[in-house]
């Protein structure tokens, strides 16, 4: 449908609701807020930043991910037109374009946002300090029960994990909770309760992102059995200078010398129900191979692939560069990975050589694909959005990836389908443009608050 043919809304609340605070939601929020409209950005986690915050370097320019992301996070956090709600989930949406009525559940953080200075004394004092696997570090690093997901988190406020904190699970923690004693501003409040607030919004941008494919669903790759078989995102944390190993690529204290990457794990694979290509794995694998080569120049690196899909700007050039770094590209994904002594054996058929191979490895990295969020169905039902056959939200028409079948609700980023960062950012700006076309109607009527 052409835009001009769309009906004129009788009423337009000049507020945009953005669901999800990853790079897509952040970009959409900034683009809308910079135009002078109010944005309510709702993020389930205690911080914005999403998956991009977890990445080490970005392809193909090898920019440090958090270095380029953090200023944007700070901008979102400080924007006078953006109301940031972390630890919050949209639970209900009624109404229609111009006047959506939205219910948001604010989960308790157990830390007063206004009082916490982010000083870290509570986390240092926590009796479970460095005992709880950090979600941000994909379980490779450890955190306390009261924690900040990562140093650059926005807001710079601590949060208590209700599933681990002794006060919240058992009602007591020693004689008195040490975090509370350590806190200089009396910011910790175990009595915080979840609350539900309601608000009105004229438009909604859905930017709920993706999940990583669970490599355990490919048991032949031994992901759950062997500690030196990692997923792509786990490798990012292992490789990151700010990660749990400070960027040294070690397994059990030993530097790895033989690394095999396996492409298309959970993508282009009907046996796990994912026929689609995840669009980023080829490039992130090539980047990861380069990072190993940089850190361990004598490491033997092999990438097992089906097709190398280096399609974006500067990607083919980067692929070429990494080939010249003596990274071996072997066509043919392995059929199984098993252990012989301490060494991993990667077995498959090289379709170019027409013969089988067995490669020894100290580390295998599985290029795990991008899958729809596990709550896509539920969120889709709440918003009245259908999903496509592969499970991501369905765009309005094949080529209109931003609009949905519901007027006033737009898609940004990987919730629509896998895509890399520049494509996500471009699409998020696109969602903002579409949202502002509606919001502008409130403006022209002079009802902007």
């Amino acid at each position, binding site marked *: 449908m*052409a*835009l*001009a043919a769309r009906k004129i809304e009788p009423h337009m609340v000049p507020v945009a609701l953005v669901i999800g605070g990853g790079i897509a939601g952040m970009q959409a929020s900034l*683009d809308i807020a*910079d*135009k*002078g409209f109010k944005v309510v950005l709702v993020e389930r986690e205690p911080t914005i930043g999403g998956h991009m915050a977890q990445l080490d370097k970005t392809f193909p*320019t090898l920019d440090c991910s958090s270095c*380029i*992301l953090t*200023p944007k996070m*700070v901008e979102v956090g*400080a924007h006078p037109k953006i109301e940031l709600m972390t630890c919050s989930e949209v639970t209900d949406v009624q109404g229609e374009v111009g006047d959506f009525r939205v219910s948001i559940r604010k989960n308790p953080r157990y830390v007063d946002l206004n009082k916490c*200075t*982010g*000083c870290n004394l509570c986390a240092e004092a926590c009796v479970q300090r460095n005992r709880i696997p950090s979600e941000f570090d994909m379980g490779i690093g450890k955190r306390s029960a009261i924690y*900040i997901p990562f*140093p650059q988190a926005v807001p*710079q406020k601590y949060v208590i994990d209700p599933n681990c904190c002794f006060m919240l699970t058992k009602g007591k923690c020693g004689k008195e909770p040490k975090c509370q004693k350590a806190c200089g*501003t009396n910011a910790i409040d175990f009595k915080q309760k979840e609350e539900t607030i309601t608000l009105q919004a004229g438009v909604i941008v859905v930017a709920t992102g993706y999940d990583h494919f669970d490599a355990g669903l490919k048991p032949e790759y031994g992901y759950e059995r062997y500690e030196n078989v990692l997923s792509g995102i786990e490798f990012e944390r292992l490789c990151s200078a700010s990660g749990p190993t400070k960027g040294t690529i070690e397994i059990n204290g030993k530097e790895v010398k033989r690394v095999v990457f396996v492409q298309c794990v959970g993508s282009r694979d009907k046996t796990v129900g994912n*026929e*689609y*290509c995840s*669009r980023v794995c080829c490039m992130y694998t090539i980047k990861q191979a380069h990072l190993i080569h940089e850190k361990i120049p004598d490491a033997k690196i092999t990438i097992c692939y089906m*097709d190398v*899909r*280096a*399609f*974006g*700007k*500067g*990607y*083919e*050039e980067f692929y070429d560069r990494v080939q010249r770094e003596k990274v071996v590209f072997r066509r043919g994904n392995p059929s199984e990975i098993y252990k012989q002594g301490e060494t991993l054996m990667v077995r498959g058929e090289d379709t*170019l*050589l*027409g013969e089988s191979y067995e490669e020894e490895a100290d580390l295998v990295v599985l290029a795990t694909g991008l899958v729809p969020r596990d709550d896509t169905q539920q969120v889709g039902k709440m918003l009245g959005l259908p999903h496509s*056959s592969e499970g991501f939200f369905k*765009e309005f028409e*094949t*080529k209109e*990836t*931003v609009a949905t079948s519901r007027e006033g609700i737009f898609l940004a980023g990987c919730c*629509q*389908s896998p895509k890399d960062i*520049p*494509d996500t*950012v*471009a*699409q998020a*700006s*696109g969602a*903002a*443009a*579409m949202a*502002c*076309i509606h919001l*502008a109607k409130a*403006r*022209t009527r002079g009802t902007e608050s």
Partner: protein
Amino acid sequence: MKIGVYVCHCGINIAEHVDVKAVTDFAKGHPQVAIARDYTYMCSDPGQELIMRDIETEHLDRIVVAACSPTMHERTFRNVLSKSGLNPYFLEIANIREQCSWVHGDRGKATEKAKDLVSAAIAKAHLLEPLRSQEKGIIPTSLVIGGGIAGIQAALDIGASGFEVYLVEKNPVLGGHLIRLNRTFPHLEEAAQLIRPKIEAVLSHPNIHVMTLSEVKAIEGAIGNFTAEIRRMARYVDEDECDGCGECIEVCPVERMDNFDYGLKKHKAIYLPAPGGDTTTPVIDCASCLHFQDKSCDRCEKVCPKSAIHLARKEEVEKIDAGTIIVATGHDIFDATKKTELGYDQYDAVITAPQFERLTSPSGPTEGNLVIGGMVPKSIAFIHCVGSRDKSVGNEYCSRVCCTYTAKQALWTSKHLPDSEVTVFYIDVRTFGKGYEELYEEAQKRGVIYRKGVPSEIFRRGEKVVLRGEDALLGQPYEQGFDLAVLATGLVPSEGAQSLRALLKLPLSPDGFFMEVHPKLRPLDTAADGIFLAGTCQGPKDIADTLAQAHGAASRATTVLFQGKVAIDPVIAFIDEDICSGCGICEQVCEYAALNLDPYRRVMTINTALCKGCGACNSACPAGAISLRHFKPDQIMAQVHALCLGRGRQ
């Protein structure tokens, strides 16, 4: 002068490798430092309040914050100063995180370095001058250059947002490459169904002024206030007077190859610009029309029963003002004659993929019947990566669309010519988008054979064209004859956009496409404020990605229009006209075209809206006539002296 120094721990980010207390005590020792404090997170609300309280009670004049990079929190702390009634530029940041604690392991030495950086910041703080940013009004209009799908969509979005748009297209019709496609991937929908409603919407939108047969000839100004000169080629056939009878075309003696059908069909010099398209009014191709060679012919003008043809008409130049500009100039198609080994210019049975689109399109020269040399081909080869991923022609990059459009064309062929044998020769199959892998799969299921290894040559044997190459999977050479070979020609930078590039001073990526300012987080912005990119002018991309990007470019371009004003950063260069000799060296180093020679006074002038304060000109000026506000020579030398003193201390 009273200076306050604030040293941040940044949790443990700084404190782990820098002795923050020692740095604070060191700062206290400076004679003009009235107060020095450390705090865990200076950027937190309590940290900011700490500074505000001190400014009020201690009457501080200058503030030094030793913390993270100024790109992170300079704005935060400038706001703190503003709120306290101080000029926001009375702030100096000492970066003791990115440039100190994060990169040094030795706590002792890192602490010493942090002290040096704080010393230097204090030394500069003395000399800081008050600066004020200015605001300028804007023209609430956008100029969109290029009338393909990207430009059309961007124009629609801007128009729908309530702003005026000028959509400038050099061809006589809108629609770009897309209007010439038969079907689109992955669902084989008719391309016309996608593009025609959008063209109609753009033509009928009250906010959008469409200028076809028009080119941007000059641009000046800066974000918020650009002025463009548009050359409007004469439309020799009046659209209002012409009734589309076609008699003019009948009498025209000139025949020439036509661009619209990619050279598949001959056209007259006066012709319908888009067969089956939106207009029944012919246009004249001046390059081949005899009248415009030697005035030897005016038959069309004479024959026209409506007297709608006016060969004496002249081109016009129109000036338009716009606040922002979107560049959507698209791409060209790789010239397959450059791959002589593939025989494109030798054999009729070797065609390009765009030609295949025209041959299968109902509006094409054969009305959608795929006929080659009078025969319906029985065996068809599709060849990937012609002009892409090929350093021998200078194109290392992947064209991003050819794999999937080939899958589409192969599938179309297997559906419409069920008896044909279809083989695709590939390097990698890059069907990465939503529904693309499924399309590839469907083509394979319908019997399309995929063979890894593109041919190294194509030659003729009897009635067939023979492809010779190596099958990488079988590890064997092949020689296979076909009735038709279709070359999946890649996308290359637009030749016609090069003059525009020069006008806008846009930088290019190594692949020759326009360069975005940041490849990850600012894919739509250019180095010039107020100028944005949409579509394939930035790099090859498919329709879905182009549309997403076009919406995005519209968002970027309307931000300043919604704001209604632009702020001019005061941290920019300024010229001492008494010293400037007008030598123009600065003009050559300026990336932003902010410097111009005043021809009367023979001195350089700075366009404050364009200057970004990068510092290139002031360091290039041989006479020292240019300085950069906030980074003036005395301010920088004071920092250098302080750092040298620091070295002496150790």
